[in-house]
């Protein structure tokens, strides 16, 4: 019997994959999306949404909110005159709420597939060969059966997995990666975190707010090296001095041992030999692209030196009609970057123009205060020898921030000294993740700082701080 044939077959149903599949189907292509049982529910049903929905962005934000409420009830209610005595957290309920949100959203994508007529094929997808101008893709189901389908175009969206370190065996009970860290059964008394990146900071702060004593060990000498230096400095001050996270930089891990009394980590910091004892350990030292089992060798799909699938600006691989998007290719491992690439590829297949503006991809760290930025940092501009003007306004000068009792942080806008075009916007403060959208939109339209300064911003809102920062670029802030 002839193989089933599709115009577009997407391998992986994470943010890059499911979006690519939906867009391809919208454009009239017969589309299938293959998803393995990695995140299957207890009944063995495939769950869509990949890392992001199942063990990443979404569940971490659910826990974030719970822990924030707990923290506010414990510490912030008092200044509003609200007494909340003996505030307690039931971790089980918190985790169940998170699980329900995940279930609702992953089910939602199934609904979207149905609505857009995307065929879902449960199993592991891999390249089997090429014949008659068609790619053969094998779908290996969990029950051991394999079906081979034919595809005119294949979009690889297999995502990434947490990097594990030699000598630190992750069991997701005592020693956890992002998966286990989102499902701890109780608040650990002492929590160790290896890696002060986005995931380490977000999860470290969640458990810190719930009462853990958190120590983060980071190999790099600089804190948040990718962020603007002023933002990194403010974040350091807030996380360590105000919130009590212990963060040790420039650390070299020597050994991790599990004993009856917990986990013992021996490490060097500078010349000093140090020891950290904790009850749970989170390892968050980056992620690696998923290409094993993809059958790249079967068809000669080229990988780059870091194990990513090699692609050009249009996400085309070295093979005809084979594309790749998201964490499995170069660029930042961000869900929204993968989604944009998914849309672009589907539209390119349809013969439309497609483009992802990698210069206008927002970065967000969901700590408290949140950190978000788009474009270039001050350090990058200096290194590139680009002359710029900067405007920086603290949230403490904003009425809404005062009213909300959350005045940490600032907005910093960087604009070209010659053309005034906005080159970067950096926010650390409440709702930074939402505020950054205005900056992204402005940059996509090539706006100058004066454009933002001349746009009416509602009062009283946090967005006024962006307005003031734009005014400050021209040294004429009105409220600072």
């Amino acid at each position, binding site marked *: 019997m002839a193989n089933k044939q599709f115009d577009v077959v997407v391998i992986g149903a994470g943010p890059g994959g499911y979006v690519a599949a939906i867009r391809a189907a919208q454009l009239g292509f017969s589309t299938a999306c293959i998803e393995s049982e990695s995140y299957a529910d207890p009944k063995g049903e495939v769950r869509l949404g990949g890392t992001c929905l199942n063990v990443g962005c979404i569940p971490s934000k659910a826990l974030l909110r719970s822990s924030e409420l707990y923290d506010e009830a414990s510490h912030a209610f008092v200044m509003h005159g609200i007494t909340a005595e003996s505030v307690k957290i039931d971790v089980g309920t918190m985790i169940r709420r998170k699980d329900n949100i995940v279930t609702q959203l992953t089910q939602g994508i199934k609904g979207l597939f149905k609505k857009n007529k995307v065929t879902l094929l449960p199993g592991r997808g891999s390249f089997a060969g090429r014949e008659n101008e068609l790619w053969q893709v094998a779908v290996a189901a969990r029950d051991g059966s394999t079906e081979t389908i034919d595809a005119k175009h294949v979009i690889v969206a297999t995502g990434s997995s947490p990097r594990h370190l030699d000598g630190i065996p992750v069991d997701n009970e005592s020693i956890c990666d992002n998966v286990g860290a989102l499902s701890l059964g109780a608040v650990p008394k002492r929590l160790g975190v290896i890696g002060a990146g986005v995931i380490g900071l977000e999860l470290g702060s969640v458990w810190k707010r719930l009462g853990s004593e958190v120590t983060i060990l980071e190999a790099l000498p600089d804190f948040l090296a990718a962020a603007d230096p002023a933002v990194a400095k403010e974040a350091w001050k807030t996380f360590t001095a105000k919130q009590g996270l212990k963060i040790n930089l420039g650390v070299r891990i020597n050994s991790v041992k599990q004993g009856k009394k917990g986990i013992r980590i021996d490490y060097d910091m500078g010349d000093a030999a140090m020891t950290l004892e904790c009850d749970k350990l989170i390892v968050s030292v980056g992620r690696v692209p998923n290409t094993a089992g993809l059958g790249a060798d079967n068809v*000669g799909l080229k990988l780059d030196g870091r194990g990513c699938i090699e692609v050009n600006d249009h996400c085309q691989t070295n093979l005809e009609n084979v594309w790749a998007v998201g964490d499995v290719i170069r660029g930042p491992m961000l869900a929204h970057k993968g989604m944009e690439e998914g849309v672009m590829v589907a539209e390119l297949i349809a013969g439309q123009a497609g483009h992802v503006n990698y210069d206008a991809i927002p970065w967000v760290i969901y700590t408290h205060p949140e950190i978000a930025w788009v474009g270039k940092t001050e350090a990058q501009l200096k290194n590139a020898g680009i002359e710029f003007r900067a405007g920086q306004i603290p949230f403490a000068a904003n009425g809404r921030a005062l009213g909300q009792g959350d005045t940490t942080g600032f907005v910093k806008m960087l604009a070209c000294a010659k053309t005034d075009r906005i080159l970067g916007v950096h926010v650390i403060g409440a709702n930074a993740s939402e505020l950054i959208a205005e900056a992204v939109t402005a940059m996509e339209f*090539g706006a100058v700082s004066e454009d933002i300064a001349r746009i009416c911003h509602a009062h009283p809102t946090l967005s006024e701080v962006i307005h003031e920062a734009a005014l400050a670029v021209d040294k004429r802030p009105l409220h600072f």
Partner: protein
Amino acid sequence: MLIEVKVPQLSESVAEATLVSWHKNVGDTVTRDENLIDIETDKVVLELPAPESGVLVEVVKGNGDSVASGELIARIDTEAKAGASAAAPAAKAAPVAAAPAPTKAAAAPAGTGPAARKALAEKGLDAAAVQGTGPGGRVTKSDVLGTAAPPKPVAPAPSMSGAVSPAPTSALPQPNVINADAIVAERTEQRVPMSRLRARVAERLLQSQSTNAILTTFNEVNMAPVMELRKKYAEKFEKEHGVRLGFMGFFVKAAVAALKKFPVLNASVDGSDIVYHGYFDIGIAVGSPRGLVVPIIRDADQLSIAQIEKKIGEFGAKAKEGKLSLEELTGGTFSISNGGVFGSMLSTPIINPPQSAILGIHATKDRPVVENGQIVIRPINYLAMSYDHRIIDGREAVLGLVTMKEALEDPARLLLDV
């Protein structure tokens, strides 16, 4: 300091070029290596980067002017300032002579949004070519949709003039826009000057036909052996070499075998001399969104089929992005034109001077043929070779084409040199 901006050395075979569009106006700040202007030659559109950073203070040659290698076209002042602030340059530029049309200044957009950029890309338009109606002259999506797309470059029509492009072609931005619907509906006429490229194509086609004694010989090839070979080794070949095993590699190899056997097919006429080339540089017509281009595979006799396929793949990709260089498009001792990609079954290609012969290959179609007294179905490709009868006799031409036919019908011959 005043720096002179000159037309770069174009190439031996290119006498002059046309300035297509200035990207900068008088008074604009320019940074080193930023593209100042597109220059169209017979073969490619070149970008001319600014030699130094500074302010463009004078434009000597405007859009549409013809220029020669080394000619002065503008001056840049490396010490001037673009005006006190970013908003001022337009005002400052006004008194300077020879400023280009004011509409362009207005159309230099502060920034175009994502939707407008996509629409621009799909229409093949530059933001500068659209009159922006947004704030500050910004080009909006509706501005783009309201502007007609430039006409698609016409590939030298394979069905009418033979399957070859007489001159390697590349992007040809055309100054005027033809509205086909309007012409048909209203019985009007539009007069549009030929672009430099089109004029050159016309000139060369005519030159070829008036100076060469062109004759075409035909033959038919049973493609089944090559197809079988390809089917058998496609996977292995691709795995080994990272490139698909196509048909062109075989055609190039077969052609080179014939050229080696009959060197006059690979020769040129120079005055009253015949120049025999001791090398085999084969021009390959490659389709691109901008038209047909004919990049040259140098020393094709020394390349393996895999290397040839890779080269063709590379040319195809470069052609798509308009990145073929003048060097890659110049020279050649013999050409191969594949009208088959457009579905052509037969054609008489026109020689690409100073070459003396050209092979036309066509679509492979199942045809009834007689073998051993039986009518059988075979995948047939009709080959055509046009040659300059002044120096090539019918015998050499016909036997040359037969050599190609035999090599393709029994590829082992290529291995054994028989």
